[in-house]
């Protein structure tokens, strides 16, 4: 079998006494759209943050194309907790800063939109392009990299065209309508030329019609950019319609996994969601 | 929109200011000659500076005009506050020069004088320092003169006094980053050691430091006969009071800055018995000029609602003014270069003794007055003479 694009093994994230993610293991394969769902506070975003290197996990490792990108060994109390347990204990300690992970080809969006508010739409995308700039400081300051700069602008504009923001290029990001801001955030993520795209509740706060547009949009970019998509989402119809597989977690633990159909009639999932689900 | 308004406002202001600034500085009519007063009237040395200004103003009342080849010229004083701050000193000095002053008097505090010296030199306008005692002021500056003695001299004087008073060991306390304090301290040390004394303790403190307990504790441990603590009038009372509180009984000595009533006010009874050197004492009018100056200036002080103790710096300010007009007379022209040349040759009876300048432009003085505080009054002790 081909190596997974993304693989989490026994990832545990503990804040003080709270175990936000509890030895979570999952895998995402080439070209899939996988959704991670679960009630509020189930630890979905935390999982994302571990993958993107915002927090080093308490234990466990994350592999990207079979290469360990994040890994940590249990320390202090946790050691005892893991002593003699069947769960894997990881001795390597790999904790790269988020920008390194982005460079590897994992891009993300944020639950609460995090655009560069006072900068223009174009600038927002250009910043993502800065990552693999070749020109050094000197040549950048003296504009010796005019060609590179032009290319950056062109590809940025191309992206804006795709998300339908090319007319708004010079507007300030914060002045865009909510839906557009989501699109811009995705465009910005795409600008880092990722292989894997992590979407954190892309449809949050969207009306059904906008949601449908988004669904189509995600499909389209997945094809155009040969992406693998891993998303957190609450809108069930979006999730069910778009995703190939679904992981359900509750209280940091995985409680179900499978195709939308399977998950839908899984009693555990229903139990977990009863009264909690808001979509 | 508001922003736009601000921009416009700003631009207009700029233009207005430039226009104002560019307006030709009135070069003075042929009947008036301008003398610049370059003194701190605010900031750390504001107090002392003002006393110096008073002396100069009074001098102008006494000699309001000067004869230049037959014509009487009215003298006009132009004052600029240098805020005892080097960065401000440059522009203040420049403002005087631009105002067309032919001679400049000042400043209290050597630092600002040194900074301004370059400006006066560039513009070939002679300056006469009243109480700036640091060697640097006149050194290598042909346009700077001064009517007071120098720190090396002052340091030696105090060292002599100390050893004459039978002191064998001394503690020296100086302010870090302050040329006056550190300089005077060094010169005292050298002289005192030459005279066979020992320096028991050397302590430094920071500008604006208010707690001298730790330093003084060390001093107390060293148990010297005298403490030499040249410092600004800001820190003087602190040192005195805290020393006494720690039970230090040694005589505390310092330089000319300490002749300022604010020290007595702040240090109260603890100030009793401090000793310092100064340039002038109204009880000992050395010259005819002085005899005429003392009563006149006392009256002037009371008219201006000041205490009628004559501060030495006022006397020096007066002398600096005299030097200026004498030079103008003998130069017999309003050309500042000519006045400068004349200054090198002048010799006259001032309030603080007969004054003439050596090749550095320093007054040839060999006598200092030692004063102390008794019953909350400054009191003349003796004069000390040191052959240069």
């Amino acid at each position, binding site marked *: 079998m081909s190596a997974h694009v993304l693989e989490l093994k026994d990832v545990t994230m503990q804040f003080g006494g709270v175990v936000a993610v509890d030895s979570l293991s999952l895998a995402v394969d080439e070209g899939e759209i996988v959704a991670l769902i679960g009630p509020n506070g189930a630890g979905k975003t935390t999982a994302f943050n571990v993958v*993107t290197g915002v927090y080093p996990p308490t234990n466990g490792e994350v592999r990207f194309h079979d290469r360990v990108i994040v890994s940590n060994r249990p320390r202090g109390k946790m050691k005892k907790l893991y002593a003699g347990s069947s769960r894997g204990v990881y001795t390597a300690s790999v904790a790269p*800063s988020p*920008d390194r992970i*982005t460079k590897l080809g994992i891009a993300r969006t*944020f639950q609460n939109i*995090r655009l*560069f*508010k*006072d*900068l223009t739409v174009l*600038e927002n995308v*250009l*910043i993502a*392009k*800065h*990552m*693999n*700039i070749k020109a050094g400081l000197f040549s*950048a*300051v*003296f504009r010796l990299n005019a060609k590179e700069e032009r290319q950056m602008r062109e590809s940025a504009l191309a992206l804006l065209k795709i998300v339908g923001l090319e007319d708004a290029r010079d507007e300030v990001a914060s002045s865009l309508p909510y839906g557009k801001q989501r699109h811009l955030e995705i465009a910005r993520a795409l600008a*880092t030329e990722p292989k894997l795209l992590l979407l954190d509740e892309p449809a949050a706060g969207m009306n059904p019609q906008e949601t449908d547009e988004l669904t189509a949009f995600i499909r389209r970019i997945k094809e155009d950019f040969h992406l693998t998509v891993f998303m957190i989402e609450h809108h069930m119809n979006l999730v069910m319609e778009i995703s190939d597989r679904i992981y359900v977690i509750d209280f940091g633990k995985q409680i179900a996994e499978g195709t939308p159909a399977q998950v839908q009639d899984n009693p555990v999932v229903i139990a977990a969601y009863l009264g909690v689900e808001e979509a | *929109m508001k*922003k*736009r308004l*601000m*921009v*416009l406002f*700003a*631009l207009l202001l*700029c233009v207005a*200011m430039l226009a*104002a*600034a560019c307006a030709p500085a009135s070069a003075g009519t042929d009947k008036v000659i301008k003398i610049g007063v370059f003194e701190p009237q*605010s900031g750390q040395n504001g107090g002392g500076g003002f006393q110096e200004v008073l002396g100069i103003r009074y001098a102008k009342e006494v000699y309001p005009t000067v004869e230049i080849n037959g014509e009487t010229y009215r003298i006009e004083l132009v004052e600029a*506050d240098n805020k005892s701050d*080097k*960065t*401000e000193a*440059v*522009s203040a000095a*420049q*403002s005087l*020069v*631009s105002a067309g002053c032919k001679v400049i008097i000042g400043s209290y505090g050597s630092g600002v004088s*040194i*900074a301004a010296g*370059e*400006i006066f030199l560039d513009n070939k306008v002679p300056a006469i320092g009243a109480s700036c005692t640091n*060697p*640097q002021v006149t*050194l*290598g500056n042909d346009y700077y003169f001064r009517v007071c003695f120098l720190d090396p001299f002052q340091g030696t004087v105090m060292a002599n006094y100390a050893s004459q008073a039978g002191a064998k060991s001394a503690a020296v306390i100086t*302010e*870090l*980053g302050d*040329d006056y304090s*550190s*300089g005077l301290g*060094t010169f005292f040390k050298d002289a005192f050691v030459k005279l066979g004394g020992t320096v028991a303790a050397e302590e430094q403190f920071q500008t604006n430091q208010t707690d001298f307990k730790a330093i003084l504790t060390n001093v107390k441990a060293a148990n010297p006969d005298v403490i030499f603590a040249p410092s600004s009038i800001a820190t003087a009372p602190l040192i005195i009071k805290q020393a006494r509180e720690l039970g230090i009984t040694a005589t505390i000595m310092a330089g000319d800055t300490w002749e300022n009533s604010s020290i007595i006010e702040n240090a109260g009874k603890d100030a009793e018995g401090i000793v310092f050197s100064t340039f002038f004492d109204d009880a000992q009018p050395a010259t005819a000029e002085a005899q005429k100056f003392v009563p006149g200036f006392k009256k002037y002080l009371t008219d201006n609602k000041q205490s009628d103790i004559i501060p030495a710096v006022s006397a020096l300010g007066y002398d600096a003014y005299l030097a200026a007009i004498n030079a103008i007379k003998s130069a017999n022209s309003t050309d500042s270069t000519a006045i400068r040349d004349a200054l090198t040759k002048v010799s006259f009876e001032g309030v603080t003794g007969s004054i003439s300048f050596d090749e550095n432009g320093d007054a040839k003085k060999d006598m200092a007055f030692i004063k102390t505080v008794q019953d909350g009054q400054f009191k003349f002790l003796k004069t000390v003479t040191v052959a240069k």
Partner: protein
Amino acid sequence: MKTKKSTKRICSVLAFAALLAFLYLLDPNSMTMKLLQKGAILAVVAASMNLLNGFTGLFSLGQAGFMSIGAYITALLTIPVKSLDGVYYAGGMSEGIRAFKMAMEAGPAWLTSVYPFLALILGGVAAALVAALIGIPVLRLKSDYLAIATLGVSEIIRAVVSSPQMEKITNGSYGLNKIPNFPEMFGGAVPSKVTPFLIAAVCIALMVLLINSSYGRAFKAIREDETAAEAMGVNLFKHKEMAFVISSFFTGVGGGLLAMYLRSIDAKTFSIALTYDILLIIVIGGIGSMTGSVLSAFLVTVSKEGFLRFFDETLTIGGWQVPLFRAGFRMVIFSILLMAVVLFYRRGIMGTKEFSWDAVFGLPGWFKRKFGRKAARGGDGR
């Protein structure tokens, strides 16, 4: 109406020529000249502080310290050998440096002509190096911790400079003087009075180029949202350090220029108050606008030391002495002004806007609208 590019070019050239002509005509020893020179110097420092605080969002209060490094290095290198003994009259000077200076002065003509500029650059470089070292630990700190730490750094630098241990080099308490004035450029083609303006112009131009480059965008991204910037592949530490070092370099150069302007410096000159004055400038100018910083640098200097002096002098109108007017009043006014700006015009003169001819040409039209004359013809630039 958008103005044609050519028109703008012409305007810029004309404006620049006019300024230059004005400077050339101005008497080098006039008050105006001195104030403008100081303004230009402060403009450089303010711009570099803005690069850090306004564009990268790092609230640093270390300016005075880095200025002192630049100033001391420049002074050390440029003080002519003949006046060294006079300057170091108390402690004497380290022989190594003296020897080096002698060698330099003995050097060929071309060397002596560029030497002052080398001194300035070295001053900047020294400041930058110190910044680079300090940045490694300090830049890990966030907002106000960073502020207080950098403020501490500047105090530490000041302590070291004035310490007796450094006396042979920095002349400890006595400070350095006999510093030569601004040098001429291009064999006198540019008289010394104009030099500071040219240098300032170059420095500021460089900074503007930087913030408009791709790296500048990365800086802004960090200002806007560190987490997002990192998620977009911007290496936080690298870029923060970059901004800190570059800013410190120009601050150092500014310090060097200040030394040439003052002609005599000591550790006291570079106290926290100096940093606050520069902060005042960038706040009034608008944090995040280079134009603003430059504009208000001149505005503040000229008003503070030029035409507002009268606040400090006792003013009597027709025998009646105006109250309040006495020494110190000027500074009170300025601090009140600062508070007013902070509280009511938080964006300062320019906000984050930069100068553009469009805006200028827009002004009349905008005026019409502003003061409700007839319907505006020809709107403003945007």
